[in-house]
Every structure is written in C-alpha cells, then in structure tokens.
C-alpha cells in the first residue's frame, strides 16, 4: 500500500524512447544535475544516477517508450518509470542477478547481463515493481535523502 506522502517540492517529467541507445542516460544526467543544484548528498546522487540509468536502459532495450517522473519531497526522492512495453512475466526471477530474457542481439551489444533490476534494487531504499505482460512495467524507485 502506498503511504501518504508530503506534497512534492519539485516534480519533473522526462520521456525515454525505446531503442534510442544514443540518448540513453540523458534522463539520468538531467536528474543528477538537478540533484547537484539542490545540494543533495553525493552518495544519494550517485545511487539515483545509477538506478535511473539502469531503468532507462531497460526501457531502451525492452519497451516502446516510457515516462520518467521525478518527485522530491523533504525526506526522499522518487523516480517512477512507467513504460509501454513487453512487461515482465516472472518478477521474482527478473530480480535475480544474471537472469535475462534478452535476445542474442542485445547481449552481443553488451547489454542484457541480467544485472539491471538487481542493480536498481541495490541502489534504492525502496523499490516497487508492477508489470503486466504485453502492456508494460511500472518501477517506483525511492531513495531517502535524510539519514
């Protein structure tokens, strides 16, 4: 269940296009730049940059497009990535390191090592995933900004 959250101090929306490998990472960079300007601690920025980048790569590899929504409240930052894509059939297995459904093509490009979701989990304080096969996946990544 979603707990009641304070009204965000700052919200921003970004769009990621599936298959756009050239621009993958731009959302991560933009979020990083904003967090630096706000004075968020370097450790939080680093984790947010890694988690967002992995989520972007997932969209680029497996989805048609996604909206990334950044919200900053006094105690946390939340990035919600909602994609229109193939969805994840077995969430439990997808969370295991090394598990990947990538095509050989994607693997040959150096992606699809099965580290995406585990890496997101490692770099966030809370991670909620819901997915509908054939429809898409929604990732909610939360990092606490106060120790």
């Amino acid at each position, binding site marked *: 269940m979603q707990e009641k959250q304070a009204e965000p*101090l700052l919200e921003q929306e970004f769009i990621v296009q599936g298959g756009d490998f050239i621009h993958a*990472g731009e959302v991560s960079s933009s979020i990083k730049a904003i967090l630096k300007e*706000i004075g968020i601690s370097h450790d939080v920025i680093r984790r947010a940059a890694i988690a967002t980048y992995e989520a972007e790569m997932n969209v680029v590899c497996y989805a048609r497009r996604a909206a990334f929504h950044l919200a900053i409240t006094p105690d946390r930052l939340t990035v919600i990535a909602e994609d229109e894509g193939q969805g994840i059939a077995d969430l439990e297995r997808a969370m295991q390191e090394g598990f990947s459904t990538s095509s050989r093509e994607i693997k040959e490009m150096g992606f699809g090592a099965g580290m995406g979701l585990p890496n997101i989990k490692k770099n966030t304080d809370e991670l909620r995933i819901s997915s509908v096969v054939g429809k898409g996946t929604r990732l909610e990544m939360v990092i606490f900004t106060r120790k």
Partner: protein
Amino acid sequence: MSKYYHSIEVETDKCTGCMQCMRACPTEAMRIREGKALILEDRCIDCGDCIRVCPARAVRSMTGSFEDLTRFKYTIAIPSPVLYSQYGMGITPNHILNGLKGLGFNEAYDVGKACEIYSAVLKEHLHSYSQNKPYISTVCLAVVRLIQINFPDLMGNLLSMEAPSAIAGAYKMAKAKILGISPQDVGAIFITPCPAKMIAVNHPIFKSDPTLDGAIAISDIYGVLFSAVRKIKSLEPLHDSGGFGVATGIPGACIAGLEIENAIAVDGVKNVINILEDVERGKITNVNYLELWACPGGCVGGPLAVDNRFLAKIKAMKLIQQMGRNLNINLAEVERMRAHLSCDVELSTYPMQPLSTDAREAIRKVKEREAILESLPRINCGACGAPNCKSFAEDVVQGRGEVTDCVFKLKEATMESLRRGLEIAQKAPLSIRKKGA
C-alpha cells in the same frame, strides 16, 4: 578546504569581449561583463581552451618568465618531453638540453628517466591497487581539477600519484646537498605545454610541498631556445633516456608501451566529461584504467605548445621509435624514487555549489530557473554574456544578471512599453473625443 588556485587570467586591457573564449569553454566558466571576459573561478579547470581561441591574446597563462631564474643561485630546467617534438627532426633532445643550458640554466634535466620510473610504478599500481575501478590517471592536472569540481565522487578512482616531474624535484634536493647550498636557492623550472602545470608549482594536489619552483611556457621559450640551439659549439651528452618520456605526453602511447590491458585513452575535455559521466552511472564495468587528457591530442596539443599538434605527434612517435620503447630501469632506482611519486596529503575536492545551501530555497531557484529558461528564445546567442540560455537563466536566479539582459526579453519589454505608450497617446480629452474612440 584550502583556497582554489588558478593558473589562467584575462588581461582586460587587451580583451575585446569577442566571446570566443566564452563559446569555447568546456565547463561554462566564462562570462562577458562590461565588454571583457570574466572567469568564474569555481568552474574553471585551467585547461586553457580559452587561451587557444583568444584572437586578442588576452587570455594568459600565469606561467613565469626568465626573470624567475634570478631568484635562485642554481637553476635546473626540466623540459616537458613535448619540447622535444616542437622543432625539426634535426634538433634532437640532446640539442634541446644543451640549448637550455645555453639560455642560462645551470643544468638541464632530462625527465625521460623519471617518466620510466613513473611508468614502472604505474604498472605495479595497476596490478596491486584495490581502490575503485577504473583507475584514473593523474598525469593531466586539468582532468584532476575537473574531477575535483564536477565529479567529486570519482576522487577515489584517481591513482594517487604525483607526475614524473616530482622525481626531478627530488633531484633538486639532492643537487642542493651536493652543492652545499640551501634547497631554496636551487630552482627547478618546468618548461611547460600547459598552464595547469602551474598548479604543481603554486598549489600541489598530491604533495604538501611543491616539487617545482616555477614553469615557463614552451611558447615563451621557443624562439630564444631555437637561437641558443643554433649557437651550440660542442654538444655535451645530456640525454640518455628511452622513449617513455615522450610517450607520457601522447594519449595511449603509455598504455601500449606498458601493455596495460583493458585501458583506454580519451582526449578533449568534452570527451573526458562524457566518459566520466559513464563511469559515474556505472556503465563502465570492463575497463581497468582510464588515461584522460584535457587537450585534444594530449600534451603535444597543449595550449602553450607551438607546433601543430598533428606534426608534433608524428615527430614524437618517431622519437619514441628512435629512443626505444623498452623500460630500461634499474629496480633499485625505482625503490629509491617511489616515495617521491606517492601522495602525502588528503586530496581536496571543490564541488560545484548548490543554488542555495537551503534545500527549499535551492528548489525554488531550480523552478525559477526552469521558468525563465522556458521564456527565453533558447538560441544561445550569447549577447547576454553567458554561453547559453540555460546558464543565463541560472545567472539571473543567482543574482548575476537580470532577465532584460537578454536582448529578446529587452525587445519584448520595449514592445510592451511602446504598445502602452501608443494606447495612451491615442487617448483624447472628452471635449474633442469622437464617439466610439
């Protein structure tokens, strides 16, 4: 935090405010104010891209001059190996070292041996270190500055090693002992292709005390050295090192020479920023070592070097071939010199400051900045004195300018006031006003 030292300045009487430096600056550190270039010191990394493009020669490296020599009883010239590649092939490294003596230095030290020792220690470090990967080379001080300012999280990836010139500094101490004079009376002067080397003179990053006493730009010594070389009567054998010294200034040459696996060389500040962003987001997983250079083409492309960097590189590669690619070092010497290369201070960072120390105020400013940016034409014309609309919007929220400094916003404001003026001018007193007007 110690004060952040800079090695580039603008001579305002020469500056014409032409904006070339502002457009070239890779860290958006330049502004034009009152018709003159102004360096935002907390953003400048001393790369010297502004020096390269300034048509008025108003951006200047704060390197020294020959007058520096008079401060010492005994002077040692330490030429960057880049100097060896600046003249025709007929002028050998030995000619250059002899020529420097002819210019009034008591001695000319060939840094090639020091580079070999440096390379041996580097190779060993790459095998034994257990810090964050990929390791990042510290040869280019502008890159180290970039990391201190924009990538403070990657400080742990920096190999904490002083440059080969630190060994030359140690040589100076030994020389003072032999001469029986105080080390303060012996001057170790680096002949440099880049302004950032002044950091090692005035504000060393890896050492508590500077190992060099001064630096003179290659461009300042080029002509007089050429004359001095032509006047040489008999050549003293001063040069006996292999090609590693020359290789330390060429991107990738050391990686190849040392056969370092999974290493890449990247040159040019923008490219370096891109690769560091990739490191930060965890994209680079299978690279052990990054050799990063602020200057396109590495040190031979330095803003204070004279010769065309492509020609200089060809010459440097020929020199490496002639001088040999092998490391001819004596292990006992490496042991003796190792300490001079190691870092003896805690490394400082100078991270970019948030828009405000109060997070809520900073967020308010981010929103205001975005709103201002939205209202701007976003054609990055630069007339406001900032390199692009985004940095202008930031300047406005930070109180470094106002919205009407944008010529398009000024035009809008003028149109609005004209429209209102016209509206008023069209009014007439009731006595003569026609119905409906």
